[in-house]
């Protein structure tokens, strides 16, 4: 059981890697960006666990800025992904413009909430 699952895992990882290698570069950039945002968020959660949640608004805004960024990037990734049939009518430029707008709003709110 353990053996088969581990071999399965290996083949899975291998196939994942190969599948992912086929992803276009721009999607890879987005993925990198998402990973960056999630990593920042995790760091903050750990930090909060260490020093306590006193400036709670700052923590919230810091965390949510990362989560928000990640979520928006995922949305963008969904929209610009060529394989995604649902959005083939949506021009990538339009998607990106929406994405920029969302980010601007997000960061405006974050700045408001941070202090």
């Amino acid at each position, binding site marked *: 059981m353990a053996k088969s699952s581990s071999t399965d895992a290996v083949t899975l990882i291998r196939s994942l890697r190969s599948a992912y290698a086929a992803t276009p*570069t*721009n999607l890879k*950039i*987005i993925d990198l*960006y998402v990973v*960056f*945002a999630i990593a*920042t*968020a995790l*760091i*903050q959660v750990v*930090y909060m666990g260490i*020093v*306590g949640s*006193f*400036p709670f608004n*700052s*923590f919230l*805004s*810091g*965390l949510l*800025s*990362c989560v928000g*960024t990640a979520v928006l*990037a995922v949305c963008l990734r969904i929209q610009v992904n060529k394989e995604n049939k649902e959005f083939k009518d949506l021009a*990538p430029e339009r998607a*990106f413009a929406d994405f*920029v707008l969302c*980010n601007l709003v997000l*960061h405006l709110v*974050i*700045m408001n909430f*941070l*202090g």
Partner: protein
Amino acid sequence: MAKKFFCPLLLLLLLPESFSADNPTDRRLLILVDDLTIRSSHSLFFKSLESRGYSLEFRLADDPKISLQRYGHYLYDGLVIFSPSVQRFGGSLDQAAVLDFVDAGHDLILAADSSASDLIRGIASDSGVDFDEDAEAVVIDHVSYAVSETDGEHTLIAADDFIQSDVILGEKRIEAPVLFRGIGHSVNPSNTLALKVLSASPSAYSASPRAKLSSPSLTGSTIALVSVVQARNNARMLITGSLDLFTNRFLRSSVWKAGSSNKYEKSGNEQFVTEISKWVFHERGHLKAVNMTHHFVGEKTEPAVYRINDDLEYSIEIYEWSGTSWKPYVADDVQVQFYMMSPYVLKTLSTNLMGLYSTSFKVPDVYGVFQFKVEYQRLGYTSLSLSKQIPVRPYRHNEYERFIPAAFPYYGASFSTMAGFFIFTIVYLYNK
């Protein structure tokens, strides 16, 4: 006589209260008597009043022209009722009018004797002083009576159980006993406004000397001989069951208290009635508090609202009327409360000996509508009860701490995501 009062009347128009805050004792007294011989039999007392600047007007108690007020203003500042037996006052005066006179802030001296009428008893009992209801009863003391040739029933009493108060009876101790002949009264101990100034000795009782003794209703030192009442509006009343207390004869008489080795050449009556009349007519023990101010530490102007945890300074000026002028009042027990449903701050004020009391404290960490409260009630003094409302608000949105060191990582994270966004935008667009 009445015309004479028109000029002061004009002055009075400006002053709804009889005694002004500036000058509590500038006053005219109406003295009601049963018959005008009292004017001469009690002349020493009246003279002492006149010598202190009072203008006296004598009327028969049943004079049909008596009127305490005209056009809604009181013509007199004080009333002396030396007419124990009057059944009905003349003119518009009645029991209610007398009490209204007191409730309007005027002073009253009421002296009864064994012939006290229901009217007089009614005025007294409405002020919280109850004469013995037995109309025949007088105060009898077989132990501490004043030795005299004429009195075999021991109704002439030499009383020396004074109230311990310099304010009411003056600083100089009254050495000689006070001669008293008349009816006793009682004061409910729960009555915080009435005070027994002169009490009977424990051996006294109140009963008719002629009737057979059967369980007197008043005995011992519960019998009050002279009481004062200071109403909530600081009007003062002196009530006693002895008109003789004020007579020239008693004032001049020598006194020898039975069982005492000391025989005094002169009774304590003169000193007693003079001092207590000074108190009743506000020559002593009348306080005023002015200039209640508060401000931030280091500032002068009074703000409309404080914020929680502000530091503030509070000050008040308290003066005492000396009979001729306002003198600084000096005490170390004046306290201020910062009050909202219960005192949050209670501070004793420190004085600069010039009447100014001040303190400083920190506003508590509670918002709400607070009051600066000074409640100062001391025996014999007029009560001071001042309050000033002041709201205390919470922090404004921009008064909280802005940049908290503990939050720097969060700031960093936020800005790094922003930077990341810009970099990402550039890379993404360039890549395409």
